């Protein structure tokens, strides 16, 4: 079946830059046309590199465009998009970077990639009314202790052992990351109460608390996990979560 054979060959050759020209690919005069075929190869490769560059702006800024595009080119050879919904492309890029030898000197880079990708997930996530903080006003301690929160659909939380929020913001603002204190540890919360995306850094102790709430543990149990750890400020953290639209609902 010549036509089927042609498309199979065509697809294989597209993704292998050194593969020979598929049989039957010609110019209008019947001559073999490798340069013409390369237009398709180039379209596929460049469009995917550009999709990744658009999805991972902080990663790109931190490593520079030349490095990023080579890294993206390597990624797309082994991880082509699995669906035509390109707004989903690049889940797995962070894990790829973890194994990408030339980026080994930047151990924070996978986390920056996770944050870039999560930002895009939040951008496209479902709409929902955030929890009105007034719902918690005037409740007695017994009721509050048993409160379980439902996380808003446009929320992501990224764990990191690096000054992730500062690094990521430097990348997104195309500013130098040179002045950032490397000993800082920032997990990052991303929220979108309505349409404006917010991000904020979270200390390791607050992260334990937030993770517990995200797993639907009651407020009292979440507080207990961190009550003895120095530097935990319940009022401040809870206030931040409530005013940033982290939750959609609460049950008592």
């Amino acid at each position, binding site marked *: 079946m010549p036509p089927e054979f042609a498309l199979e060959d065509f697809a294989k050759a597209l993704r292998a830059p050194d593969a020979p020209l598929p049989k039957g690919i*010609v110019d209008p005069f019947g001559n073999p*046309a490798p340069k013409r075929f390369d237009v398709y190869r180039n379209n596929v490769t460049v469009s995917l590199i550009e999709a990744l560059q658009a999805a991972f702006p902080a990663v790109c800024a931190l490593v520079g465009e030349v490095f990023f595009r080579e890294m993206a080119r390597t990624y797309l050879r082994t991880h082509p998009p699995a669906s035509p919904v390109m707004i989903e492309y690049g889940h797995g890029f962070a894990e790829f970077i973890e194994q990408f030898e030339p980026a080994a000197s930047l151990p924070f880079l996978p986390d920056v990639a996770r944050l870039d990708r999560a930002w895009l997930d939040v951008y496209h996530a479902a709409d929902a009314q955030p929890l009105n903080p007034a719902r918690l006003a005037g409740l007695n301690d017994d009721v509050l202790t048993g409160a379980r929160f439902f996380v808003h659909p446009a929320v992501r939380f990224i764990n990191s052992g690096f000054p992730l929020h500062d690094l990521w913001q430097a990348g997104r603002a195309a500013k130098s990351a040179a002045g950032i204190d490397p000993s800082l540890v920032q997990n990052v919360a991303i929220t979108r109460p309505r349409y404006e995306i917010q991000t904020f850094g979270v200390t390791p102790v607050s992260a334990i608390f937030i993770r517990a709430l995200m797993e639907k543990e009651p407020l009292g149990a979440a507080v207990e996990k961190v009550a003895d750890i120095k530097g935990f400020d319940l009022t401040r953290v809870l206030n931040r979560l409530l005013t940033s639209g982290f939750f959609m609902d609460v049950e008592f």
Partner: protein
Amino acid sequence: MFDPLNIPNQSGAGFKGEHFASIMESNSTVGFFEIHAENYMGAGGLPHRMLTAIREKYPLSVHGVGLSIGAEGPLDTEHLTRLKNVVDRYQPGLVSEHLAWSTHDTNFLNDLLPVPYTKAVLDRVVEHIDQVQTTLGRQILLENPSTYVAFSQSEMKEVDFIRQVQKRTGCGLLLDVNNVHVSATNQNYDAKDYLASFPVEHVGEIHLGGHARDVDDQGAPLLIDAHDREVDDAVWGLYAHLIGNIGPRPTLIEWDNDVPAWHILKADVDAAGRILEQKAGNTHAA
């Protein structure tokens, strides 16, 4: 009040989020907007909020770029369902897709790839379009491609292939005049001959866009369908010739890469609008 289910015989633009504020602030006169369906397959957020606001003010056309109608495997029914969801949500006046393939072995290749024009491929494309039209419960328009290579296996001309597809599926046609010019140059045929044999009575929409210039293996001109600049003078000429022959049709300016400020894109939209008005005027006078 406009009829949202009726795309007027006016000129429109591909909608880009970065133009939203300019469009709304200037209250732009635009016949309709068109979106790439795949960009609205997320659940919510700003893209849907902007599109909802656009849809309240302007007729909307939905253009799919990922269904891979020409692929040798079966259609991705999950993706077809996503397209149906976008169509159900926005109730567009027109829905269109491409005579091309873009998925192979579940890998999405992110380009509109050419098919050989054979009877076997024709049967497959017809089957796929039947499936799309049945699922969506409406007619779609099929767009003629830009091509850079030919297949030695091809058994018929592109225009005959498209006529057969139309006849067997009852689909409408989206005639991309830039693609006609690009393919005619690249495949060494005359664009006006192509238009003369195209089944124009089934054309529900026209696309215009910009192309880049390259050369092929023999040093002959090779045009690339880049959508990254103004519509070329040669394409304007072909378009005016076509509209003079068939009368006005909804006409979209596509500008997807190196997207300019709104007023620059709008200038091409207005240029198409003037040709439509002029030819409509001639038609009425005749």
